[in-house]
């Protein structure tokens, strides 16, 4: 089955396509990584760097930036309301999906993902440069609002969701889901007091959605994992979570764009909020 079988195939670009369209008018390539210095070591020619914390998160409140700050991030990176942003990054595009999701919070819908992300581009021996682009400042009108209600879930939303036993996907590792570990393998930080999962959540580690090269699995395979494996129905109200919302952004992207579920929210507070929250119920 080809990529065109996805619900929204237009949101994915291949490394072949991007290599041939680096200077396509009306687009901006955006790198977003876990490794904070990776962009500086070399990036896809023309790509700008948007950092998940420094650029997208409020420095003083655990929240995202406000619409005015978002407009400024876009303006300084040469992004207009009509610019198509192609996101890519390390870790199988965790942070690329996170940045894409954050752009969607502000109503920027012209977004795409480089299938396979940075690792695939590098492994294929494609061009990298240390030269940072200097895009002309763009005009980006301040969005009227940040559309949290559409694609973002907060603690209270998630608690109500859990009590109503609505579909909820825990995308962390099986060890985190069971409570055997209170951190993701290789990331012992971001401490939480308790291990386990939100009552009613099903365990579907994010990695099930990707092939070994970081590209997304075919639709049929994804349907077997999510639609059949989790019994998700069209129109279902679905919440995905992980530890801080980046791995669940990846799953949110899969459910929303590749499988076409129209009502998926990312609980970005995730386990670092739930696992520490006084009186939050958990299951093991």
């Amino acid at each position, binding site marked *: 089955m080809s990529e065109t079988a996805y619900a929204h195939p237009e949101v994915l670009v291949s490394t072949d396509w991007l290599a041939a369209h680096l200077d396509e008018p009306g687009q901006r390539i955006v790198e977003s990584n876990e490794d*904070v210095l990776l962009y500086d070591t070399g990036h896809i020619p023309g790509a700008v760097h948007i950092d998940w914390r420094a650029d997208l998160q409020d420095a003083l409140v655990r929240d995202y930036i406000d619409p005015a700050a978002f407009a400024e991030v876009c303006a300084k990176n040469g992004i207009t309301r009509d610019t198509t942003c192609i996101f890519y990054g390390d870790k199988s595009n965790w942070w690329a999906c996170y940045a894409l999701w954050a752009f969607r919070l502000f109503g920027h819908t012209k977004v795409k993902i480089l299938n396979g992300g940075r690792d695939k581009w590098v492994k294929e021996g494609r061009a990298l440069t240390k030269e940072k682009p200097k895009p002309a400042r763009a005009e980006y009108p301040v969005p009227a609002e940040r559309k949290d209600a559409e694609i973002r879930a907060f603690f209270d939303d998630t608690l109500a969701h859990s009590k109503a036993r609505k579909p909820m996907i825990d995308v962390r590792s099986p060890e985190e889901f069971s409570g055997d570990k209170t951190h993701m393998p290789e990331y012992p930080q971001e401490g939480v007091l308790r291990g386990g999962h939100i009552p009613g959540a099903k365990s579907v580690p994010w990695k099930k959605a990707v092939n070994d090269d970081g590209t997304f699995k075919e639709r049929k395979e994804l349907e077997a994992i999510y639609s059949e494996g989790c019994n998700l129905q069209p129109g279902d109200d679905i919440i995905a979570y992980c530890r801080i919302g980046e791995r669940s952004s990846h799953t949110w992207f899969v459910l929303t764009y590749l499988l076409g579920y129209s009502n998926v929210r990312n609980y970005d507070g995730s386990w670092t909020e739930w696992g520490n929250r006084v009186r939050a119920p958990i299951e093991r």
Partner: protein
Amino acid sequence: MALGQSGEIVYVPLSRGDMGYPPQLTKIIDLFAALPEEEKRENLIAYSEQAKKHEPRPGETFSLEDIRKDEECTDTVGVYLTVDESGHVHFRITLGEKVQTLTKAMTSILCRGLDGCTIEEVLEMPSDFVPQIVGGQLVRIRSQTVYYVLTRMKSACRVYRDRLRAAA
């Protein structure tokens, strides 16, 4: 650390006399402490690109080898310790390809900065110089691995010292 005029945390340059960092490391700390954020990044990249130069060379033998992949790091890290006849340490380090750029940079900095120290000097050295080198913007919850290589170097020194004590 101290509080700045608007209440922000600022990193006060350390005095080598007060803190007793090795001279080579002190030079590196002083260099980074004086740099603006962007130049810190450029220098960290330059150090990260030197990391392979600190791998073991053919024919070298070591007083202790500690190669492992554990929870604190995204890939395997090998620490190779040599203690010369005068009791000074020399490190070689191998890094798996998934290791983050900051870890690569700290590897270069520490292999250089700790070269020629004694075992005790390495073990007693505080790690509070790291934010001065890395810079406030890059020290993150998820980037605590900047401390990882130093922890592993200290661990190798501790094992070596304990072996010596046990053999005495």
